[in-house]
């Protein structure tokens, strides 16, 4: 069976587990533990290893969806999961103190995925916090990574349609990038 692996990344509380639950066709395997730092991020639980979901494309093909634990202290899990993935959906909350900086940090941490495959950025809670704007995110990416155009959308991680659209945009982007990049690589 042909398999594709997509990673959901981003800081704690951005909605990764929620997003995977919205698109997965199987019951999501999650690894939630009681949150010791409720005074910092007000959620009862937090992911400590990974989330796992699937979409069965047809009988012969499957997309595996992995969600990382957002906190940096689990970066050994990031290393494990990064190796397997072809692309990633990076979620950030627009009402965080510095979501643009967080986005850039995760793009850096997952640079290989960004280089190798594709990234789509999803901005959640923009209805609560309308700034920074999408243009700000896009400008920050252009500044840090010249020449790369990364789709940035406002999303609601709970919304099935939003998350499916994001997944489709990611795959379309990965495939088109491969289409145009292959010949360049051969030419070197």
């Amino acid at each position: 069976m042909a398999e594709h692996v997509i990673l959901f990344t981003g800081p704690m509380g951005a909605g990764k587990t929620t997003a995977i639950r919205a698109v997965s066709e199987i019951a999501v395997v999650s690894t939630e533990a009681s949150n010791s730092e409720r005074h910092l991020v007000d959620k009862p639980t937090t992911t400590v290893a990974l989330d796992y979901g699937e979409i069965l494309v047809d009988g012969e093909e499957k997309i595996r969806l992995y969600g990382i634990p957002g906190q940096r202290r689990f970066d050994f899990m990031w290393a494990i999961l990064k190796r397997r993935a072809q692309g990633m959906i990076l979620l950030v909350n627009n009402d965080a103190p510095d979501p643009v900086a967080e986005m850039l940090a995760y793009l850096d941490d997952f640079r290989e995925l960004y280089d190798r495959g594709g990234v789509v950025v999803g901005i959640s809670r923009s209805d609560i916090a309308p700034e920074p704007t999408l243009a700000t995110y896009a400008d920050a990416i252009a500044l840090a990574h010249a020449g790369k155009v990364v789709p940035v959308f406002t999303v609601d991680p709970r919304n099935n349609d939003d998350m499916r659209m994001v997944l489709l945009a990611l795959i379309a982007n990965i495939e088109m990038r491969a289409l145009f990049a292959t010949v360049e690589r051969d030419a070197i």
Partner: protein
Amino acid sequence: MATEWNQAGEDSAAGTDEISATAITSEPPTTAGWEQAAVAVNSVLQLSIPMLMKMEFDAHDPLFIDFRYRAFAWSTPLSAFPEDAVLAGLQTQPTDLEAGLLFDLPGQPLDGLLWLIGLNSFHGARAPWLAPNERYKLSRWPNLTQHRHTMRQMQMLAVLGNAYVSAGELADTAGVDNSEAQSLINALSLLRILKRSVQAPAAVVAAPQVTKRESLFSRLRARLGR
């Protein structure tokens, strides 16, 4: 000197007579469709000075745009966007940042309107502000969660995000009609998220083993029912 058009509710029965005497430009009515509006909006965006715009229609309430805030106000929802609306009048008026509001903010985000005007003007022909022999590449993606779009458009955006292509090349790579490709280019140009180049060479595309027919995108799209 704050000069403002009356709100739609107050002058619904009147035509252009009741508009402030300091309105600068006034276009005569033309045929159905959005071409004239598209050209006017593009010109205003080109100027980058604070402007207001009012469009009047045969069968709809007036549409107001306040370019200072990239917002518009219209009683017709974009989900019911009338592709063949008959424009009865169009006025633009310079303003300044201190002048009063044309309508209560935040209004609706202008991008949503630009997307639809861009897609629905010129019937698949090149917008007049674009030149022949140009290639295009996205500077950033439109916010697809907020714009009704097709999967063919998403496919085209993926092309435009990764290479400089002409309308014809875009159509070929994405497997769509020229007119669909051109309409999207028109819309993206109005949204000001398209880079234009006459120097960029034709992008080289890999051998056809990665064809649209076999792509994961098309299979996933079928699976997700789009």
